């Protein structure tokens, strides 16, 4: 699909993401200014505080943004997922330029001017308001401008904690290996940064160029910035009011989450659309990374998300893997009910286990059928694994031990890139999803798990018990979906999106329509 065609189809969603992005940046900068400028002023009056406070703000900025988001998630009150966490991180990031420039600007006022002001009998607050702040304004606005441009960039990461924004397109584009998504997200973010830089640069010029200082009428740049700000505030206010109104008359929407790969988003979208068809309002919080879906559900931020019995069994309940699907399912069902007050839906009808893949030609040449067949070759091979597989106990560590594997090199990369890496000979073995559509299309071969190392990973939905009570339609939907998707069907659906680059919502709509017949 050409980029222009893509834009034609998707501009409403893109615009929505742009709006989310702008709102996040705007609110973050607003809060950072409200905190940062007074703190900066305080620092100019208390020399002893300057070192420590600037030092702390400096540290905040050097922490890699993704790590900062990670630190914040488990914290009470300001943590969790969504825009609130993102805002906390964004504000922390924006503080340094603003505080530092406030201090520099005020301290940079001509000493003779300040001395004259004091000597004429101005109080400290008069000196601040009438002399120091007006003269420091140019430098302060520079700090705000720098902070804003940085914030536009950092906000792309906010998508990783479910806060929305253009990062959604960027991450999805990376995951699905889709250049259109990548371009749309990255290009828009870059344009936003440039626009912010330009607008604030105009405001800055008002304060720094001597000629403009004389302009008594409201300068155009400031008018523009105020107009943009007014639009954002009005729009935000309207949305808040409308949400409040909706919340008072309708029930709270069902928050559905998904993990950050196509199949999970698909399964979540299926439930979402079925609920919406029954008049239930739904909030989609898809593409959450790592352990986020589980933690969010336990903390009440999510009502439901798709999971796999094996993952729950080993990664969350920390049991050693066993082979019997029935036993795994029952154990998981019982423990989730007692430990988390979460119900496990009936299995959906397919398994998504870790498929250990090699190139088809390699398998044929060396006559490889099982993982044990491949084990002696691994010292000459390079392996590529996704973050999930690398970090889970039932992933690479246990797997390599169970089969006695030793690779020449193990590379950790984004899961969606491992398929191309394998087929283009950059790696020789990967651990992928067994329902991945590209297995056939890229001529990859799945080695059998002859030692039965991996537990069964039956697909199920996990849902909070209180959500089931609150939304009766949920139970009905989940019952309908029991045993409704076969492995082949899941592969096909995955391929529609990853391979044919179709819109997930469309694919699900289509599938649901056929199911009802």
């Amino acid at each position, binding site marked *: 699909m050409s980029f222009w065609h893509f834009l034609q189809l998707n501009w409403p969603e893109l615009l929505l993401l742009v709006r989310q992005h702008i709102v996040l940046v705007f609110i973050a900068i607003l809060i950072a200014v409200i905190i940062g400028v007074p703190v900066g002023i305080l620092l100019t009056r208390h020399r002893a505080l300057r070192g420590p406070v600037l030092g702390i703000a400096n540290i905040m900025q050097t922490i890699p943004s993704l790590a900062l988001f990670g630190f914040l998630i488990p914290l009470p009150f300001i943590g969790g997922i969504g825009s609130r966490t993102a805002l906390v991180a964004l504000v922390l990031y924006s503080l340094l330029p603003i505080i530092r420039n406030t201090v520099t600007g005020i301290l940079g006022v001509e000493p003779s*001017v300040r001395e*004259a002001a004091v*000597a*004429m*009998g*101005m109080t400290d607050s008069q000196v601040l308001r009438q002399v120091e702040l007006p*003269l420091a304004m140019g430098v302060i606005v520079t700090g705000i401008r720098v902070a804003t441009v940085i914030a536009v960039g950092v906000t792309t990461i906010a998508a990783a904690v479910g806060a929305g924004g253009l990062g959604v397109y960027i991450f999805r584009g990376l995951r699905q290996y889709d250049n259109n998504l990548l371009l749309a997200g990255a290009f828009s973010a870059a344009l936003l940064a440039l626009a912010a830089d330009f607008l604030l640069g105009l405001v800055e010029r008002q304060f720094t160029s001597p000629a403009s200082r004389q302009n008594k009428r409201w300068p155009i740049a400031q008018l523009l910035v105020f107009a943009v700000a007014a639009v954002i505030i009005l729009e935000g206010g309207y949305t808040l009011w409308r949400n409040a109104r909706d919340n008072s008359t309708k029930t709270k929407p069902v928050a559905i989450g998904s993990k950050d790969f196509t199949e999970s988003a698909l399964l979540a979208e299926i439930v979402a659309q079925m609920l919406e068809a029954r008049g239930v309002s739904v909030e989609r919080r898809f593409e959450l990374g790592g352990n986020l879906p589980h933690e969010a559900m336990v903390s009440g931020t999510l009502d439901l998300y798709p999971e796999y019995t094996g993952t729950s069994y080993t990664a969350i309940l920390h049991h050693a893997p066993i082979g019997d699907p029935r036993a795994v399912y029952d154990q998981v069902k019982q423990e989730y009910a007692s430990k988390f007050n979460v119900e496990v839906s009936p299995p959906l009808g397919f398994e998504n286990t870790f498929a250990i893949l090699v190139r088809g030609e390699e398998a044929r040449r060396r006559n490889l059928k099982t993982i044990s067949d491949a084990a002696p070759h691994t010292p000459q091979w390079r392996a590529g694994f996704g973050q999930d597989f690398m970090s889970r106990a039932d992933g690479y560590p246990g797997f390599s031990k169970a089969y006695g594997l030793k690779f020449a090199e193990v590379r950790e990369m984004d899961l969606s890139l491992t398929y191309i890496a394998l087929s283009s000979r950059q790696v020789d073995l990967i651990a992928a999803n067994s329902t991945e559509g590209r297995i056939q299309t890229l001529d990859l071969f799945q080695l059998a798990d002859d030692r039965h190392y991996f537990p069964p990973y039956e697909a199920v939905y996990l849902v909070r018990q209180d959500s089931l009570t609150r939304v009766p339609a949920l139970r009905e939907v989940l019952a309908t979906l029991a045993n409704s998707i076969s492995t082949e069907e899941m592969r096909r659906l995955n391929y529609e999106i990853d391979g044919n680059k179709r819109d997930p919502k469309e694919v699900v709509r289509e599938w649901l329509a056929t199911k009802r017949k």
Partner: protein
Amino acid sequence: MPDTVDNPLVQFQNVSYSLPTAANIIVNLNLSVEQGETLVLLGESGSGKTTTLKFVNRLLIPTTGEVRVEGKTTTAWDPIALRRRIGYVIQEGGLFPHFTIARNVGLVPSLSRWDQARIDERVRELLSLVGLDPERFAERYPRELSGGQRQRVGVARALAADPPLLLLDEPFGALDPLTRASLQKEFADLTARLGKTAIVVTHDVREALILGKRIALMHQGELVLLETPERFLASTNPQARAYLETLNYEPQKGTKGTKDI
């Protein structure tokens, strides 16, 4: 040093000043300034003259000793009230670059909450007084003015609230000799006419001789000589002679001739 002044406007009593980083900046200073006189603090860089000036409007506080203004010690004064009764002129004027000339001059009156009409009137009056046409200059900004014009505005600003006392720190130092000479003369006339008391800091002995009713010569933090210009010219004090030698003037000759410098 004879210091026979009753009812001085400003009085220094046993004033000393040291910092942790520098001892003996001012050493046991005793000095009085009488109402209506212009006292010049003359000395080289580091002699302590500017420090002495800053005691008067409480920009600095002595380590020991007292400074009294209108009979009250500076530490007893409310600093804001004290400073609003003192006009302060520094080199280059210290004008606010983001205020118009009018707003600069009217600063202290507006701080004291005069009504706007009265402020405008006063600004016009003062600009004329210092030789600047209000029509032409009131709405200008400091950077648009020459050094000499800025200095005049500085004086106007200091006079705006009609304070009894003026402090001037090397007010004419950054000007070319012609402008400087002209402003010195105007200033002397002005203060005499308005009956102002002034303390002027300078390192220029010519300026001291022109402006001062008395000259206080300071050297390394101490008051070395306190005399009228006539007696200064005749003085045998080594520091004074060092200054006078820069005029190529022999102390034994008459006191005339200062005017044709």
